[in-house]
């Protein structure tokens, strides 16, 4: 069987099956490695810790980028598509990040991290806490240490204070 026509069956945590072209599936370094190690007849790869909704999203990403590379899509178009692709709720976003990290898809991981970073950018401590449901849990001692670390580069922390 040639790699071109080869179909890989990915099975999500909740046992949903996705049939994906070989080239698309192997954008995940993990899957590429798995497929290298097994005989050609094997086509089913279980993805035990990614659910169907997230896996569908990840496959959508891989498919687009596989195609985009093939037809030499322009940078701007890809960037626009990426931006739209990342317009998801926090939960999905974090899950995509975890999946990208597990499946070892470097570009998607990078895109996800940048997206989360973009959400944090220029927000105050309180806003970040609210955005990501984080509870402040510092002790007195740590608060003091924090003020000390505040001396790291006076200018940058000034900027920091101003933004709050």
């Amino acid at each position, binding site marked *: 069987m040639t790699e071109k026509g080869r179909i890989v069956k990915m099975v999500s945590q909740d046992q949903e099956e996705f049939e994906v072209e070989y080239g698309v599936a192997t954008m995940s370094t993990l899957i590429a490695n798995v497929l290298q190690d097994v005989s050609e007849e094997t086509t089913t790869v279980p993805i035990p810790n990614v659910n169907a909704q997230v896996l569908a999203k990840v496959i959508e990403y891989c498919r687009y980028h596989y195609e985009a590379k093939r037809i030499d899509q322009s940078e701007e178009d890809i960037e626009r598509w990426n931006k739209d692709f990342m317009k998801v709720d926090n939960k999905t976003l974090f*899950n995509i*990040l*975890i999946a990208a990290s597990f499946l070892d898809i470097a570009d998607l991981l990078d895109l996800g*991290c940048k997206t989360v*970073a973009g959400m*944090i950018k*220029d927000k105050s401590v309180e806003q*970040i806490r609210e955005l*990501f449901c984080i509870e402040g849990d510092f002790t007195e001692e740590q608060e003091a240490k924090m003020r000390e670390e505040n001396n790291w580069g006076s*200018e940058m922390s000034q900027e920091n204070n101003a933004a709050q």
Partner: protein
Amino acid sequence: MSILDLNDGLLVQVLSKLSFANIFRTSRCCKRLWGLVWESEELWYYVLKDFLEEEVVIRQILGLLGSYRLLAKFLVKYSSLEGVWAGDIKPRGQLLRVEFEDGALVGKTYGLSVGPRLGVHRLINRLLFKLEPENHNNELKVTCKWFRQSQDSAGGEQGQGSSDLPDNDAEDAIPEIRSDEFTLIRSAEEDPGEILTNPRNVYVRYISRGELPPERLPRKTTYRRLKYEIQQQSENPSDAEHEDKLKEGMYWALYGLHGPEIILVTYNENSMIEGRKITGDLNVPCGQVSFSVEVDCLRSYQLPPETVAVRQALLQAAGDEITHIHSGVGTVAEEYFRHPRLTVAELLRFRNDNFAVLWLELGNPIFFRPLKLPEYGEVGRRFLESMASGPPFS
């Protein structure tokens, strides 16, 4: 679902895409984020990775510290020291440049030695201090080492007279760094005693021999960043008018027996071209305006030939042809800047970037030439820029 459901590795990768100010704020959200930022190495490894590949100096510092976190701390805290500064040690002043070298931040003072022939000059420098980072029980410790000027090298010893000796017992510090100003504090004042009491001595004994004269170093010196617009070499011929401007920047001139002095030429808010002394002398000390002329000028061809001829004659053998004349004022004063006053002066510009200032009252023109310090890595600037920039989109 919270961002805290991500594992440490992922959180670090997210953080590494942020600017320093944003990393700092995020770290204050909770203990776990705090720990990832300030108590572990991984984030700083990612942040510094590319930078380390490019910069040998930074790798040297990493070698000394053995910690990405402490390296980042050193860079964040001290990088803004890099650059060119004017020290306020009256009357002479100091031109200081701070750069990364051999695993430390070093400060060198610059001056000129002037040979017997006009225009023959050499840039000389002396090591003033070294800021050395150190890993002290997993915390960053930075020591400021002074380099004493050797007291007298007149004994006929050959080679560079001013050998630099580290002053190890000094407890010195740089308490506060702002982007445009910092203060150096020494444990003791250093006073060689003879400075500028007799300019002729200083000139003959030191400057003409290619040494910087000893200088008084007070306990506390404030340095201000030298700011001027650096003009890019324009490839576009339509920018000719822009090129026609006298360039902002550092220039040097021989102020008679006071020896070479360094000035900063800038365009000030009153649309005047201002020459302010970075290093000065007993009469007009550092920090004072030496001359100030109008931006609007007359081209030499717009003037009657006699007018130009008289000035050209004053320039004697300099061989430079006057192209523009700016009128304005120049500062004169008695010793110790007593009775300072402004007298009529003219700035005569030549084809190259050189110019002369003619104090009409004094008669003799003073020739100014651009001062170029040796190029350096600008490692700190690039680090701060990379740390200040945020993620590519939000």
